Structures are given as C-alpha cells and as structure tokens.
C-alpha cells in the first residue's frame, strides 16, 4: 500500500517525517551527553538546576513530538496532559512547603 493511499485513509494525519523523528532523537542524545558533561563541572547549587532543566527539555521533546501532543486532533488531550503535571506540581510544592519550613522546631 502506498503512502499516498494511507494519507487518504485519515482525516487528520498526526505523524511527522522519518527525518524529523531522527533529528529529535539526535537532539535527545546530544542533550544526554550535555547533562553528563555538566555533572562533572562544579556549578555549586546550580548542578541540580541544570540537570533538571535539561531533563525537562528532553521530556518536553518526547511529549510534544513522539507522543504527538503538539498537533493532536483532540485538544482535550493537551488539557489532560497539563492537568497531570499540574497535580504533580501541587504534590511536590505543598509537600516541600511543609518539610522545608519545619526548621523552627
């Protein structure tokens, strides 16, 4: 079956070209090498910040392009994804708001 026919079978075509996926994969590998390299440089309190920033960029690339949240035909999917990370943020922020403010005891 040719690609042309496959396209016609879908009203909405969500995948990207093979080259695009390979490019995203290459960027993810470069970011992995960057974060490993950064781990051996003493940045003081910024080591975890840099590591988590790079991890978040990698996670965003995977969610948006590999999991096709960007350009999804159903807008509700994006809302569900955001709500997941929103509740995770509540879990972490409120727990730390408690544990980090116990020093007065």
């Amino acid at each position, binding site marked *: 079956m040719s690609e042309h026919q*496959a396209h016609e*079978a879908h009203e909405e075509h969500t*995948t990207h070209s093979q080259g695009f996926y390979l490019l995203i994969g290459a960027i993810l590998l470069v970011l992995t090498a960057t974060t490993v390299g950064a781990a051996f440089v003493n940045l003081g309190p910024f080591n975890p910040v840099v590591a988590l920033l790079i991890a978040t960029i990698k996670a965003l690339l995977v969610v948006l392009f590999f999991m096709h949240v960007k350009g999804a035909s159903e807008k509700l999917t994006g809302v569900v994804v955001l709500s997941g990370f929103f509740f995770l943020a509540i879990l972490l922020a409120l727990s730390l708001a408690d544990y980090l403010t116990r020093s007065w005891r």
Partner: protein
Amino acid sequence: MQNSPAVDGQANLSVEHLEHVHNPALLHHFADAQQQKNAASLGMWLFLVTEIMFFGGMFCAYLIYRLAHFNAFAAGSQQLSIKLGAFNTAVLIISSVTVVLAVKAAEAGKRKLLVSYLVVTVLLGLTFLVVKGFEYREKFEKHHVPGSTFNFTDTFDDNGQKIPVNSKEAELFFSIYFVMTGMHALHMIIGCGLFTGLAILAWKGRYSPAYFTPIENGGLYWHLVDIIWIYLFPLLYLISRHS
C-alpha cells in the same frame, strides 16, 4: 479493548474498500474512526496521568529524604556508574525513536517494517534490562542492597573533601534507588511483553492504516516509561557528582 471479532477480519481490506463500506474496526457508538481514535488516545492519557502520580509520589519521597540527608544521598549517588546509566539513557532514547517509526510504519500500512521496528524496540528494552541487571549485581557484591547485610563505608567526596556519612542514611538512599529503578524496570518488563504481543499481532496482519490504535497507545506507554527514566537518570546518578 478493541478485540471484538469484527476487528479480526479487517486487516486485509484495502483503503479504497474501507472508504465505501462500513469500517469493521469502528464500534457502533462512535460517529467515525477519528472520534474513536481520539477517545482511545484520551483514555490512554488518563491512565498515563495516574502513572505520573504513582511515580510522582516516589519522586516526592526522594526529594524530601535527599533534602533531609543530603551527604548520605550524595555519597550513595556517587557509588552509581554514570557510564552504565548514560548508556541505558541512550538505549531508551533510541528505543523511543524506533517506537515512533513503528507508529509511522503502521499508519503507512507497511507490515514488515512495523514488525521490524517493534522487534528492535523489544531488543533495546531487553538491552536496558540486562545492563540494569549488571548494575544490580554490582550493588549486591558491594553489600549496597538494603537489608541485614547492608554495609556502607564510603564517604561523600565533596570536591576532594571526604565527608563520612551515616550508614543508615545511605541505606535510605539505596532503598529509594531500588524501589524507583525497580518499579521502572517492572514497567520496562511489562512494556517488552506488550510490544512482543503487538509484534505478533502485527505479523498476523491485525493492524492496517484504518486501525492501529494499540500500536499508538502502546507507544504512548513506552514513551512515558522513557520520560520517567529521563528524570531518574540525573536525579539518582548525576546531580551529586562534580569534579
């Protein structure tokens, strides 16, 4: 999920044919195939959100204990192999690429290419698990597995300055290490089983450009497990290293 008998027979129908007759993969309570696809994707994402919260609880525990026992966590983290961790990260990223290419092959109706990508994905997943196994073996040999034989005499190397740490606090680090990487490895094992099943069904011709939802949703699961590792790697292996 969608394994109704009607689905089984549709694989060999051509696309032109599907446009004129009722699509056998389309369940009667959906208006059209696109709506059915969107519903399946939304349901999968709701499941993935529960997974994010499940691992989120463990990340939260890690964060709180790391802040409370910083030196011991740093000393424990310095015992992990960055080389093996980075190798496994690369393996998972490459497997995520083969997964999206599998979805693309399914969308284009290329059956053999789809099966190849699924098989390569499973092999990459198994590679990850084997490397993880070697890491675990090293932990057993060094008595870094929490329990009655746990023994931790290493110090926290704070840029050349050796700081002794409490062995009980280091045991806490390794407990969290084993629970988090163990749950992640369990998800990898489930993923490998899932993708083996998908590869067999794809080989039998179950999927067509009109219906490949299990490939797409299996892919979403695989990517999420990849994302969890993307966070586990820096948090467990990297952030206490330096010089």
